């Protein structure tokens, strides 16, 4: 799905907003500091608010064209919106919250079933509870489920990690990847934590002072020198999708394949991995730039299990640290100190070994299916069959 904002302008009080970008990623992150205009962007896209100027398009459909006086009402845009504060209806049980949109979806293509949602988001034990009895993470899951059951063609999530603690953040990220994969529903996710966004996608839109200042692949944006400040210590993640190859029970190590040829070893410290995983299962990994060390030669007699040979493509200096972009068959951001560059005479084009401990990888998500994503038409068919069964 292509989301396009063409010279969209808006004004709220004394704040001016200007958005001009296009994204076609299955997951897009919207990144920027608090108060930059991220939620306003969502409000304009979902129809909560109408811009003063410009055009908003979803694929070929024009949602807003101020010049032509064409505005599609929010409730007719078929866009699911998970608000930062959830806004679960406090007088309704979780089940009734989830089914709130039922009277309004009769004319829509129904491909997300109640049963799928409660099982994918592990909501079954919560169904009879009231929202006030739920934890932050549970509320977030119910709000996501409620939005999905309105059968949207696009899902907007405003700061889905803001009201949940660190361990639950990981859980929500995993759930979002699961939903995105299962229903093939495009998502746009707002966060002011780039490291969270990067675990989900590398395609981002940057919002600063009410303006969209850059969009596209975050690695490319940084490498092009547009926004070198995006890569910051502890605020950046390398992310990659790998496939499960084998499990070494003696060493308790998982052998995973990146780009089908590069083997990485990951230790079993994550509850997401288990010995029952099938070969080929897709796994999303993340790695902090600070957790990668560089050496000029391959080390012997070391506890480090991954030594990946690569070439320094670029050295990025910003006001906080120095980062090397290393091409190991895939791109890896490595955080180093200025002193090391001088001591080792590191330079662009130099061959180098990236040293990564097996337990420094973070397992973000293990996909349910081995490789193929469930076809949307198949989902619609299954949904109508289960509805027929319920009726009979």
């Amino acid at each position, binding site marked *: 799905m292509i989301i396009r904002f063409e010279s969209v302008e808006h004004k709220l009080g004394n704040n001016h907003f200007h958005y001009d970008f296009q994204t076609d990623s299955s997951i897009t992150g919207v990144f920027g500091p608090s108060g930059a205009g991220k939620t306003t962007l969502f409000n304009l896209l979902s129809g909560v608010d109408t811009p003063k100027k410009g055009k908003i398009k979803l694929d070929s459909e024009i949602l807003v064209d101020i010049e032509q006086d064409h505005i599609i009402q929010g409730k007719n845009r078929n866009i699911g919106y998970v608000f930062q504060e959830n806004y679960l209806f406090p007088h309704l049980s979780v089940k009734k919250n989830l089914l709130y*949109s039922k009277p309004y979806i009769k004319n829509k293509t129904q491909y997300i079933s109640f049963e799928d949602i409660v099982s994918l988001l592990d909501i079954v034990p919560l169904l009879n509870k009231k929202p006030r009895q739920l934890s932050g993470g549970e509320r977030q899951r119910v709000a996501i489920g409620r939005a999905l059951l309105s059968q949207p063609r696009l899902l907007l999530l405003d700061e889905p990690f803001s009201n949940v603690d660190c361990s639950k953040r990981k859980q929500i990220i995993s759930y979002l990847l699961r939903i995105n994969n299962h229903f093939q529903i495009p998502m746009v996710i707002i966060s002011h934590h780039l490291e969270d966004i990067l675990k989900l996608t590398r395609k981002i839109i940057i919002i600063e002072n009410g303006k969209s200042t850059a969009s596209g692949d975050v690695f490319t944006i940084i490498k092009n020198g547009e926004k070198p400040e995006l890569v910051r210590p502890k605020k950046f993640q390398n992310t990659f999708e790998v496939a499960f190859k084998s499990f070494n029970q003696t060493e308790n190590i998982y052998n995973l394949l990146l780009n089908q040829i590069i083997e990485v070893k990951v230790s079993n410290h994550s509850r997401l991995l288990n010995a029952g995983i099938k070969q080929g299962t897709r796994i999303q990994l993340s790695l902090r730039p600070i957790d990668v060390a560089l050496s000029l030669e391959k080390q012997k007699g070391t506890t480090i299990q991954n030594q990946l040979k690569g070439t320094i493509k670029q050295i990025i200096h910003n006001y906080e640290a120095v980062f090397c972009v290393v091409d190991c068959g895939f791109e890896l951001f490595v955080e180093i100190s200025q002193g090391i560059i001088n001591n080792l005479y590191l330079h662009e084009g130099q061959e180098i070994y990236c040293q990564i401990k097996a337990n420094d990888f973070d397992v973000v998500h293990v996909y349910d299916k081995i490789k193929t994503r469930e076809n949307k038409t198949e989902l619609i068919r299954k949904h109508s069959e289960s509805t027929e069964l319920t009726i009979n």
Partner: protein
Amino acid sequence: MFSSEEISVIFLTLKVALTSTLLTLPLAIWLGWILARKNFAGKFLVEGLVNIPLVAPPVVTGYLLLIILGKNGIIGHWLYETMGIKLAFNFAALIIASVVVSLPLAVRNIKSAFELVDPNYEKASSSLGASKTGTFFRVYLPLAFPGILSGAVLAFARSLGEFGATISFAGNILGKTQTIALNVYSNMQIPGKEMQVTRLVIISVIISLLAIIASEYLNKKKKYFVR
């Protein structure tokens, strides 16, 4: 224990209080809703007019009703001449006086209940496909429900105790417009009627107490409900 006169007075009072509460409620919900959530020209005037009976002496309210709706009143005269409808000194007058004096209490309570509902729920409801009417009935009304109920209880209680506007507009006619309050007032002045007065006073206190307890309970529930 109770004489037939007392029983008919108690029944008439309850009948008036119930009927007027049922008539007050939809009007109070509508007024409470628009005053809490809508901005329109003359909002201040509407709020003032609704609240007049709360601050003006009830006798004044009764007198105003009489000059507007009485047989020779501005509207009352036309109603009588064209349709033969008489609104003063009968059961209708009891109801009208009761609705007018209890309306501001119900509206104030219901308005504050609507104000307590976070308007962001409307955004959530709309994003799920609901229209404004759908959102009103499925979100605002249930969330404001304890407040609406407590407003209704207050209107009922106010109606039970109504005296000034009723005596001015509906009169004090035994068997026709005499409620507990009016009966007590009349019999207080007659020697030997002390026991009847006492019995009706006790009944009145019990009903009022129950109404206030119910209202307080619902008010507490309202805060818990909307939290």
